[in-house]
């Protein structure tokens, strides 16, 4: 319980700072909207093309926007040596990573909400037809992206080229998660009932989340101190 309370304190602190500075939200939100706009002008997609490409476009935009969020996640701990202060305090590495991932999740979900509305307008997609399934896919897939982003944000925080290194490292890892999210999202945009094929991808999402969350918690101390 104490560890969870510490994680929520870290997430709350990060979100409070972000709401004041809006560094990640402005960058990630603007990036997502601009990419969606540019693609809509570049391809002028019809209904079929949107159904086939919509999920892929959205999740790639979310993944790229995520990198902008993750780069700031641990970087905001560097001024005044706040990261050292946290690491020498009573908080466990697992709580710190969990808190960071929760804040990443909240920020990415905010970016996704804006992006999906923009996507609906410019691509003429009725995304609200299956809201609960879409919300479930978004939360499951975004948690996977957020926890991977938190881990590698911590690993790359002291690198000079962290803005470059972080995406290079995390995108290959996110491939199974992105494929799963894209497949299910495409089916939802087609407004068809989810088949066994999509449900299998749903399981992939769940397993990805569990495996990476457990790994992150188990290796948190090593990741943060070394």
């Amino acid at each position, binding site marked *: 319980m104490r560890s969870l309370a510490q994680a929520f*304190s870290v997430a709350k*602190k990060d979100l*409070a700072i972000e709401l004041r500075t809006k560094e990640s939200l402005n960058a990630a939100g603007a990036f997502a909207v601009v990419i969606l706009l540019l693609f809509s002008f570049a391809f002028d997609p019809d209904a079929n093309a949107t159904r086939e490409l919509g999920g892929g476009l959205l999740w790639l935009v979310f993944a790229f926007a995520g990198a902008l969020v993750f780069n700031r996640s641990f970087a905001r701990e560097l*001024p005044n*040596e*706040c990261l050292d*202060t946290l*690491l020498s305090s*009573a908080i466990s590495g697992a709580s710190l990573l969990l808190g960071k991932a929760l804040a990443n999740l909240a920020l990415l979900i905010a970016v996704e909400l804006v992006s999906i509305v923009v996507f609906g307008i410019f691509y003429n997609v009725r995304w609200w037809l299956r809201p609960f399934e879409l919300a479930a896919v978004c939360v499951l897939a975004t948690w996977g992206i957020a926890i991977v982003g938190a881990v590698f944000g911590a690993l790359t925080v002291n690198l000079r080229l962290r803005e470059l290194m972080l995406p290079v490292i995390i995108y290959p890892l996110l491939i199974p998660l992105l494929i799963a999210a894209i497949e299910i999202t495409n089916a939802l945009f087609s407004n068809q009932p989810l088949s066994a094929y999509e449900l299998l991808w749903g399981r992939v999402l769940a397993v990805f989340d569990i495996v990476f969350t457990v790994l992150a918690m188990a290796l948190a101390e090593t990741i943060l101190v070394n």
Partner: protein
Amino acid sequence: MPRAIELEQLWKFYGDYAALRDLTLHIAEGSCCALLGRNGAGKTTLLRILAGLSPYQRGVVRVFGLSPRSEKARRQVGFLGHGIGVYEDLSAGENLNFFARIAGLPAPRAVAAAWLERVGLARVASMPVRQFSRGMRQRLALARTFLHSPNILLLDEPFTALDDRAIAMLSELLTEARARGATLVLSTHQIREALAIASHVALIENGRLRYTGERTAEMLDDPALLYRLHTELGAA
């Protein structure tokens, strides 16, 4: 006296460079140890190892008999490094409230408010730290370090760049901490200030412990004495 800190044959390398070499040092509970030494001697490295921030390659490090990375040990440690360790975009109150929550204190808001009053920042509790003067930041950093009444205080150059008010406040806080039995380890170049409050001294040169023992009256009279007697540069 039981030992608060035990270092046995400690070696720390940065690449091939040995920052600490075969260092053995014991610090008794309730004592105040001044870590002395020139720039690059290894004082900061030693403090970072004790705070659980830096891994070491060889030797044994125990804080109250525990690994410095253990949560139980860290809960008893207050660390003030070169940075003030507070967030610029949060207010003073939010900063202290956050660190009080992290420390698991039962009434974090009340503790934060009491410390803001104590360090003279209650009036500006809701102001973002980025708008603070240097002196105000330093006092906030002191409040953050002492907030959870740690049993071990690790202070890296605590007197450096402090204004008069902050120096007086730090001296008062250190005296109080000693009175309640806390163990103090502080690295410093301000030998006079450090020796005035230290019960013990440890002199480090090039990562090696050159001298350790009680602080004597002779050291107070002649702060450079230790360097002259126990370091190669001093002897030269």
